[in-house]
């Protein structure tokens, strides 16, 4: 028994489906619609939502019958580009005001792409739902491109942070503007607090908009998991402030953290810190440059130090060192490396771009959605400083922010995107005047 599913090409409503034609095809046992199986829908909220399924003796017969279904949809132009201000609605606006809006001494803005997590495993939930509906075990073959479209992913996010410095150089106020795209699910109010920066003791003025669009639904992260866009924007703004003050970024970061678990984590990874590497060249031509960066998340306390090597000719960025300190009890050996692997992909490689017209996922498979490979990842140096279970999502957010900060140090560019793919690294380098000429 094999199944194949029909995915909607856009958000809208299914108005007609030729189930009789599909049922008449050889080897076809059943055609399922929303009324037959809760995993299917007549009102797809996004491109890639499963609307019908065919169960047949072979996978080939199921796929052939899909083509006979001739679906007709009623649909409006989808709203899929929140970065361009195109949203269905603002689900919620959260305002936090513990201080006056800051005069901007340093600004950083980061946009983070949808993130597919935690695994790219076969579509077990959909397969199980279809098997329940027909009352028999079956095998669902769904290409990875379809799985990227059909399954919820981490929300795309945007965060801009402005910092104000006092007379002694310390951060005295922070201003955050953040947007989180909850996609077709819409209700993601639980996520708003995750967008706030962890700057204990610093007066904050924040506005977080959670918006609904016709993009695939958002997977809700664990409560308390920090927002990687906010974390990266905060570290990049602090880096810009330290540069403007001519200080070591570590000194400035220490100043923002009172004694406590987060400070202890920072001090643990700081043993690997030799100051900013300022794009130190590895070769005579200045093609390969080195950079170091760190990131701290206050709750649950996590600090990451990253070193990268950037290739100014190709835009390729390699992660050469990664140290993590968490306020948590030692966990399974693979826990932190897996969190770092996801951060590496999130910061540098993994992107399932959406068609701006339909919201359909453009990535065709693992050749486009680029996971880390055997040469991508260094050994993770881990320090466990506490007693609670570790939160891998927070480590992922901190590591992605640290990698971006190291990239800024290696290249001098302001990395405004997760992921910083080679083209995003290269275009500001190509448009900047070349320092070595």
């Amino acid at each position, binding site marked *: 028994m094999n199944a194949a599913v029909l995915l909607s090409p856009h958000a809208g409503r299914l108005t007609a489906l030729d189930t009789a034609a599909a049922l008449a095809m050889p080897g076809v046992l059943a055609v399922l619609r929303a009324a037959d199986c809760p995993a299917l829908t007549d009102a797809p909220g996004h491109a890639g939502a499963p609307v019908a399924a065919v169960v047949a003796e*072979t*996978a*080939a017969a199921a796929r052939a019958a899909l083509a006979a279904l001739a679906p007709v949809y009623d649909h409006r132009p989808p709203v899929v580009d929140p970065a361009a201000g195109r949203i269905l609605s603002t689900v919620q606006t959260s305002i936090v005001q513990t201080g006056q809006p800051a005069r901007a001494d340093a600004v950083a803005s980061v946009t983070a792409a949808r993130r597919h997590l*935690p*695994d*790219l*495993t*076969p579509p077990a939930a959909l397969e199980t739902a279809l098997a329940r509906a027909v009352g028999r075990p079956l*095998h669902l*073959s*769904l*290409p*990875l491109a379809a799985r990227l479209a059909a399954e919820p992913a981490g929300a795309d996010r945007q965060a801009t942070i402005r910092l104000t410095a006092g007379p002694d150089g310390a951060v005295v106020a922070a201003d955050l503007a953040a947007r989180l795209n909850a996609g077709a699910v819409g209700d993601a109010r639980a996520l708003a607090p995750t967008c706030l920066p962890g700057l204990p003791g610093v007066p904050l003025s924040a506005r977080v908009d959670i918006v609904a669009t016709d993009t695939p639904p958002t997977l809700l992260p664990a409560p308390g998991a920090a927002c990687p866009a906010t974390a990266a924007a905060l570290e990049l703004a602090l880096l810009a402030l330290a540069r403007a003050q001519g200080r070591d970024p570590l000194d400035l970061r220490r100043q923002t953290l009172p004694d406590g678990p987060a400070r202890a984590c920072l001090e643990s990874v700081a043993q690997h810190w030799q100051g900013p590497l300022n794009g130190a060249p590895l070769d005579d031509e200045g093609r390969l440059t080195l950079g170091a960066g760190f990131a701290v998340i206050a709750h649950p306390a996590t600090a990451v130090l990253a070193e990268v090597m950037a290739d100014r000719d190709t835009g390729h960025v390699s992660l050469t060192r990664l140290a993590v300190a968490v306020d948590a009890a030692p966990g*399974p*050996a*693979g826990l932190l*490396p*897996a969190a*770092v*692997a*996801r951060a*590496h992909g999130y910061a540098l490689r993994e992107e399932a771009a959406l068609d701006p017209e339909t919201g359909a996922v453009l990535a*065709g*498979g*693992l*050749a486009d959605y680029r*996971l*880390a*490979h*055997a*040469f*991508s*990842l*260094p*050994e*993770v140096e881990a320090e466990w400083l506490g007693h609670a279970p570790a939160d891998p999502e927070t480590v992922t957010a901190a590591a992605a922010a640290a990698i971006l900060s190291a990239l800024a140090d290696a290249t001098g560019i302001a990395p405004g995107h997760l992921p910083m793919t080679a083209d995003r690294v290269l275009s500001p380098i190509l448009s900047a005047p070349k320092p070595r000429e």
Partner: protein
Amino acid sequence: MRFIVNGVERELEVPPHRLLSELLHDLGLNVPPAPCCDGDCGAGMVLVDGMPVEAGLTLAWRARGRAVETAEGLAPPGSPVARAFAAAGADACPHCTPGVLVAAAQALRVNPWITEDEARAALMGNLCRCGGYVPQVAAILAAAGEIQTGGGA
């Protein structure tokens, strides 16, 4: 169709559209039937006459008269490769590990004096979502050491 699976001769009825991965999966072997569906992930890697093949992209009848080896045959429990993977904690996850074991055993069979870079290169056809490459490479090198000192392949 007659073929050899992990050294045992088998004779089976095979429909023409059946994938090698589905056939091996139905024989109870740990070969995912369709991990990524386009051969990029390497989770469905097996050896056919000693050469690595993506079983999820190969029709079963292509193995007719040939010798197929899976992780069970190449790295059985107690073998240097299996023990090294267990010791390094590189066998934690069921998704990519069978294909990684095949790639590792194949690389060690071709070259037991494998270097770290060669071990990484041997895994370039395998993607691991958990990023467990560091322990996997360490396990390959540990197994290589054992094979070199006479632990057997």
